[in-house]
């Protein structure tokens, strides 16, 4: 749970590009279709199975549980995607790193500690899908902040820079 001061408000939030979650969900969808493929192959070859019951009912029962596992896996990916976020308020930057369902790391950086913001788009897919990395350099010995694979990093850098200027003007 992220808590904010009374006079603090969220300026914007940054998440990873939708292409990443779409890629992960596509892999889940391919896995979901594996039993259909096996069933189609077994139907095409001259083999008959006697399972002691309705074979189609047996297949649907097995496929339903397979789909349930894929369905839950899809929601695990979505939850990880949605909870991995940068929240920029008028006072600070909150970096929430969600790695799997049971690993969550939250770092907070005051905006006035930020020295430099860099955006980085590299690679063929990243250039055409417009996603990349934002790197924040902080003052002193504090750690560096970065978020990778975010949508439109140049625009995010500009918005973050504007938030810094507004914060310093106060």
């Amino acid at each position, binding site marked *: *749970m992220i808590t904010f001061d009374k006079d603090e408000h969220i300026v914007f939030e940054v998440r990873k590009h939708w292409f990443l979650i779409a890629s992960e969900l596509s892999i889940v969808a391919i896995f979901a279709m594996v039993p259909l493929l096996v069933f189609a192959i077994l139907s095409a070859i001259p083999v008959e199975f006697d399972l002691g*019951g309705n074979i189609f009912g*047996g297949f649907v*029962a*097995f496929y339903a549980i397979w789909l*349930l596992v894929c369905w*839950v896996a899809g929601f695990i990916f979505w939850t990880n995607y949605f909870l991995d976020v940068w929240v920029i308020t008028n006072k600070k930057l909150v970096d929430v790193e969600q790695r799997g369902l049971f690993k969550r790391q939250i770092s907070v950086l005051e905006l006035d500690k930020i020295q430099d913001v860099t955006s980085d788009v590299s690679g063929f897919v990243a250039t055409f899908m417009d996603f990349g990395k934002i790197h924040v350099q902080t003052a002193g010995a504090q750690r560096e902040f970065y978020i990778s694979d975010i949508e439109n990093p140049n625009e995010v850098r500009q918005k973050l820079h504007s938030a810094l200027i507004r914060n310093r003007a106060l």
Partner: protein
Amino acid sequence: MDILAEKTLFNFPIPSEIFWIMLAAGIIFFFTFAWIFHHHWNYYGIEGNSKVFAKSLFWIGSIFLIFTMALAITAFETL
């Protein structure tokens, strides 16, 4: 010789109890993850339409699959 007319028969009877046990395991699996997602979505601050949409989709999809499995096992038993 007609090759297609000859089908190899594999006799591999599966007791329907195995499917019912799989269904029970599926229900436990579903409720475990429903509880984990409920915690994460509420406590970690997913709000608004995203939460309502995800919650509804998860429950409707899962219950549909569990119900389908129960019907399919019944169909498997009735033959």
